């Protein structure tokens, strides 16, 4: 590599090493593209370091304790103590293992990793400021570039994350002690996932949400199952409440003030506040102008079906691109743009992006809901199977929720599915494949499913849509 005025050259520069960027880089390198991956923090991005992985680690560990603690009925008598510091240490170990794994994979595939913060210095040029003192900077000239700089938590007025008792998700996932009480601002999936485990750890959780329900975008009967379980865990919900501000109270706690539509204020006492009102794309630090790029109204970079922006040879993927802010969507886009860059006939032609919420119970969805199918002009056939009729669910003493399959009534093609219940996040995989394959209700119904498993519920829901379920009544 040459330093100084002369720029380093690379065929492909990938900015950001989250699940979008590192996957794009690995795939491109596999296809023989000379690839440079630039990351200002840790490899793995939000997802591995402060998102999907740490949250799921804490959720799992908490559940192991909670389930044993509440299993008297099954003959399990457990006296459970949670050592949050130890749990967080373990979680950090899991994260380290995965991020160092990503580094090894990048290297083994021949990806050139550059540590530093990148910004555009032209249509074919990035300037990278290396981290650490006196590390200087370098210029990287690229033929093509992938912007994969991800997102950060949105801050709302009156709640600055650098104030100690106000936490964003990153800070919450690093707490070394369970707070006595917590006000959670926002009932989206991140707020709900973390509220649920804090409540299980004994924290007194209050969720204040501006909308009139949790989990916007999910259907009422799906949400109800999760909301009910959360309430049983002691979570209090206040809807139609916009958070306005907070101040310290006498007892070292805080008081959070909210306002409803009519301008009436309410106050909530707690030890800390956790704000989870969404995430915004990270594009402001990239000097986009220099490359001729401009974010759209949602602050994202518009892309075509190959992931390319309006500037030739510059692609955008993951949380900075349109679409759901999900790790697997970022990774898929990463693979597609890598193949496009390598000259393969790839495109974003997937039918559906599945999504999971790791609440108790889990939610997982893929493709269309019944209402969406109707909007698209289908006459949907819908089949449902409640886990209360599942032998496997009964043997795990966890049988709330259901599998619902939405298909085209004429052709039988599976259009989508909604699952709320145990292992929903794993069960959705079969339905994701079904949607992509153009499988029909009959294909799923005719496929033998192992007994006793929760996945039999998928088969039963398909049979129900066809009018011949065995383990539920067909009406």
């Amino acid at each position, binding site marked *: 590599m040459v330093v100084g005025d002369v720029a380093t050259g690379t065929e492909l520069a990938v900015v950001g090493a989250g699940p979008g960027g590192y996957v794009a880089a690995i795939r491109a390198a596999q296809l023989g593209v000379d690839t440079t991956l630039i990351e200002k923090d840790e490899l793995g991005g939000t997802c591995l370091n402060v998102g999907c992985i740490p949250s799921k680690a804490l959720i799992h560990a908490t559940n192991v304790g909670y389930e044993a603690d509440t299993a008297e009925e099954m003959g399990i008598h457990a006296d459970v103590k949670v050592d949050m510091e130890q749990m967080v240490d373990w979680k950090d170990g899991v994260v380290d293992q995965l991020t160092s794994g990503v580094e090894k994979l990048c290297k083994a595939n021949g990806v050139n990793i550059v540590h530093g913060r990148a910004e555009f210095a032209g249509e074919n040029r990035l300037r990278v400021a290396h981290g650490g003192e006196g590390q200087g900077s370098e210029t990287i000239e690229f033929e093509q570039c992938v912007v994969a700089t991800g997102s950060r938590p949105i801050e709302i007025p009156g709640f600055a994350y650098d104030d100690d008792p106000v936490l964003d998700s990153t800070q919450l996932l690093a707490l070394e002690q369970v707070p006595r009480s917590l006000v959670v601002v926002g009932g989206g999936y991140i707020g709900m996932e973390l509220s649920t485990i804090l409540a299980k750890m004994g924290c007194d959780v209050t969720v204040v949400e501006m909308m009139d329900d949790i989990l916007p975008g999910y259907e009422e009967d799906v949400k109800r199952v999760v909301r009910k379980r959360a309430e049983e865990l002691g979570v209090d919900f206040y809807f139609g409440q916009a958070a306005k501000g907070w101040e310290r109270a006498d007892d070292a706690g805080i008081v959070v003030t909210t306002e409803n539509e009519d301008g009436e204020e309410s106050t909530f006492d707690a030890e800390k506040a956790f704000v989870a009102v969404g995430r915004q794309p990270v594009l402001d630090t990239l000097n986009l102008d220099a490359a001729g790029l401009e974010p759209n109204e949602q602050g994202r970079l518009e892309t075509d079906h190959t992931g390319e922006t309006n500037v030739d040879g510059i692609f955008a993927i993951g949380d900075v691109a349109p679409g759901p802010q999900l790790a697997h969507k970022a990774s898929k886009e990463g693979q597609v743009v890598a193949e496009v860059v390598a000259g393969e*006939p*790839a*495109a974003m*032609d*997937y*039918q559906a992006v599945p999504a999971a919420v790791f609440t108790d119970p889990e939610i997982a969805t893929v493709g269309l809901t019944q209402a969406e199918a109707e909007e*698209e*002009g*289908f006459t949907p056939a819908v089949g449902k199977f409640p886990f209360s009729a599942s032998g496997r669910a009964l043997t795990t003493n966890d049988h709330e929720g259901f599998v619902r399959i939405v298909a*085209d009534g*004429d*052709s*039988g*093609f599976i259009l989508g599915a909604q699952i709320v219940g145990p292992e929903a996040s794993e069960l959705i995989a079969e339905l994701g494949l079904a949607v*992509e*394959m*153009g*499988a*029909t209700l*009959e*294909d799923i*119904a*005719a*496929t033998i499913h192992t007994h006793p498993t929760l996945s039999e519920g998928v088969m039963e829901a398909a049979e129900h849509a066809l009018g011949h379920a065995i383990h539920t009544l067909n009406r």
Partner: protein
Amino acid sequence: APSSSGRTFAPPSVRRLARELGVDLSTVSGSGPSGRVTEGDVRQAAEGGEREDESELTDAVERVEEDAEDAVERMDEEVEAEVPLGEQAAEHAEREKTLAAPATRKLAAD
């Protein structure tokens, strides 16, 4: 062909093949169950002709026959192969014939 809603139903591998061969999927009429577009439909479309309404099964059989021919050719070249390739291809044929989705097999039975 696209459904009433404008969707085309085809497995990912078939969609990719369509891009590879430069075929516009929305113009291809599917011969699979309920009109699912198959690999054979796309290849046919690429060769120019709109595909007749054949079943995916016929398709698989065609492919298998091609395979068998290939195999016989290969066999001519490698006479000393340990496993007779013709036999292999025949087994392939048997398998491929049945490598049709449950709904396809049901159609075939009807």
